[in-house]
């Protein structure tokens, strides 16, 4: 399939994804128990025993009592003119909430993945080149242990040690680079283990491949062959994973955002759904889905353009 067709297919897929997911979010207040308008009012005013008139007036203001499809149509209409609507709680443009949040999450997920990539390249290469020896066994055990760690148990313990006991790092917040250390560490754990395994097996495969043997036969030393031929090849599976993980982390860091009081995307969507602030939830989900599809799409495309085997469409069978 040509790159152009790939792009087109992605775009269509993206459109469908955005429509479907935003509609799914949109349905929530219509099918869940409780009055969404009261829920909105409660978010504005704690213990607001809003009377019926207020509920009516508020619903009126945002057209919340219109038929479901009318409401969705209205949202769609606005959406296609680039307007994600107004938050039902603050009355301000959704973009004003979503864009800073996605910025935060992008930087958080980005740093976590960057850290994970660096660490896992190191670990993966070590363990692939020492396959079967103790460094490999140790690293393999670590990678299997890392994915089993419940981050919601580890994070409080780390805060306890690093922030409370030793006062080395901030306990929460999102302002200084130091405040990123713990969240990034926690977020990076699981990717590290998956990436390390990917790098390890990629490098092992590359080590066994004939062109590396040929490179050695050409007179390249072990290290040269490793640096020039093995590692670049061994990292191929890693890049495809990074896309998926990036997509997953975009909205998937709710736990970390809650524990470290980080105003990111996961948290925003979580709160918006809880408070029935559907435009914000929709906007958030749409942005997350778009970013995720874009990231995986771009990686897919880069992969296609850069890997000759994929590009020329090696026939299998």
């Amino acid at each position, binding site marked *: 399939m040509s790159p152009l067709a790939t792009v087109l297919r992605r775009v269509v897929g993206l459109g469908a994804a955005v429509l479907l997911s935003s509609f799914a979010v949109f349905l929530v207040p219509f099918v869940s128990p409780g009055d969404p308008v009261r829920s909105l009012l409660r978010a504005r005013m704690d213990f607001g025993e809003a009377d019926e008139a207020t509920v009516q007036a508020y619903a009126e203001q945002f057209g919340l009592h219109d038929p479901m499809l009318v409401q969705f149509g209205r949202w769609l209409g606005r959406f296609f003119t680039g307007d994600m609507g107004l938050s039902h709680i603050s009355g301000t443009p959704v973009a004003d909430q979503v864009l800073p949040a996605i910025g935060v999450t992008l930087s958080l997920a980005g740093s976590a993945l960057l850290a994970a990539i660096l660490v896992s390249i190191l670990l993966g290469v070590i363990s692939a080149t020492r396959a079967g020896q103790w460094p490999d066994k140790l690293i393999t055990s670590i990678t299997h242990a890392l994915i089993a760690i419940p981050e919601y148990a580890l994070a409080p313990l780390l805060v306890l040690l690093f922030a409370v006991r030793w006062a080395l790092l901030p306990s929460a917040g999102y302002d200084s680079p130091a405040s990123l250390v713990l969240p990034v560490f926690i977020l990076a754990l699981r990717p590290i283990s998956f990436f390390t395994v990917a790098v390890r097996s990629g490098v092992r495969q590359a080590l*066994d*491949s*004939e*062109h590396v*043997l*040929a*490179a*050695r*036969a*050409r*007179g*390249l*030393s*072990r290290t*040269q062959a490793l640096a*020039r*031929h093995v590692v*670049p*090849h061994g990292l191929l599976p890693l890049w495809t994973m990074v896309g998926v993980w990036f997509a997953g982390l975009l909205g998937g860091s709710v736990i970390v955002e809650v524990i470290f009081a980080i105003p990111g995307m996961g948290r925003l969507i979580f709160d918006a759904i809880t408070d029935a602030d559907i435009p914000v939830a929709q906007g958030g989900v749409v942005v997350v889905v778009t970013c995720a599809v874009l990231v995986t799409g771009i990686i897919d495309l880069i992969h296609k353009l*850069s*890997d*000759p*085997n994929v590009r*020329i469409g090696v026939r299998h069978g």
Partner: protein
Amino acid sequence: MYWVETTFWIASPRRKSMAKELEFIDLSVSSGQKLLLSSARGALRSGELVAVVGRSGSGKTLLTKAIMGLLPEQLQAEGQVLLDGQRLDQLGDKAMDQVRGRRISMLFQQPKRVMNPRMTIRAHLLEAMGAHGWGKARQHEPRVLALLEEVGLFPAAQIAGKRPDQLSGGMAQRAMLAIALAADPEFILADEPTSSLDSILKAEVLQLLRRKQQERGVGVLFITHDIASIQHIADRVVVVSDGQIVDQCPTAQIFSKDRHAKTRELVEAALPALREPRTETSGCLLEAVEASKNYTRRAKGQAALKPTSLCLHGGQVLGVVGRSGSGKSTFARLLAGLEQPTTGRIITEHNGGTATRVQVIAQEPYSSFDPNLAIRTSMSAAVHRLPVEQARERMAQAMSQVGLPVELLERRPGQCSGGQLQRLAIARALLTNPQVLICDESTSALDSVAQRHILDLLLELRDKMGLSLVVISHDMDVIRYASDDVAVFYEGELVEHRPLNDFLTSAEHQHSKDLVAALDITAAATAAG
């Protein structure tokens, strides 16, 4: 016992300054307890081309890897490797790096697989010259171009910028040679560098290799399983069998009758026994009428097969040749009904309205059976609709038809040899009572001995059961050996279709002429035998 006569070149006095010598003494390679190569000894001097022949799995590749010190970690080597008297096997990794590529370099079987798909030919060459790093490229550009031109790649500048997958097989093999020559080595170990090429390319590359070897005076160790291809270029021949060097002699002597049995076997397999092609006149069993195939979307691009008409008679052996990508397989798949023609049609119904049963035997014996299943299970695919007892009988029958014991059915593919698997594949095809067998490169993955056996089996089946065969091969020897009629494909087009003898003597199309000419390079063998 054969060592006695071979000592003459091992023990030859060393010419210290001039003649370089690469020597291996009692070289053994083992995997755990298992000896894969035992006490091999031999030598190679510069300016000499020594062929190493032997059947598949006999240990030829291990020999080269052991010399280079590049055995996989799980294998252990013992013995001495001497380069001008220097023990290579005792050199450290660092010192060995100075030897590899610079003093001894290698050629491989599949050039595209052994080149880094992301690197240009230029980068490969620079790397081989030991010139990595920024800015070196420009400085070494003249040498890069000179090397490429030396191996006949024009225009060199353009080719240097290409990546392996942008080259044809022959070009890639030449590029590989350029890379091997880049650091001006004294010895080249060539591990079946031509086996993936069609006959024309093969002849070209062989001649090129021989020329370079003589011009530059390097020593070449040329590994192959095909004796015919080396008889004009090799100075000496070493025969390997089951991990042992069983015979070696000057090339001319290899054809004498009193050589080692293994040598005889190889020689015989290579000898194209000329048989009388049959001319069949029975009606068409399978017919292609203006059949064409285009794989591109909505048939916009180039057709893989242009409209082709051809008729296959009962009991006929049709040889199909053509270079890679010329549409041979496409044609076979159309005939077998595995693919629908884009235009035209394939007529399978002749005499009496019953459809002709067509079966295909694939190229790769190892991939035509599920590696996880016992052969019996895989085979039963053809008869699983029958009652168990009957199916069992049919399988036993088929096995005897291909000359294999039934016990083989209980094995897994990994436990069988390539030749056996190819027979099993034929047996499986026979279960469906085919009238036509299409063999798409069915023998090219096999060594020459196994290849010969399979071809004989096929011809025997033709005689006994009246099967029609379509033998597809890029190897003219195979075509000549087996076929009654020859069809030549060139760039998706059937350019020539005539009886074998006509074809050999009076081919019309230029490509056909090239094919016949390439055949001549090995033709003298007949006389020698």
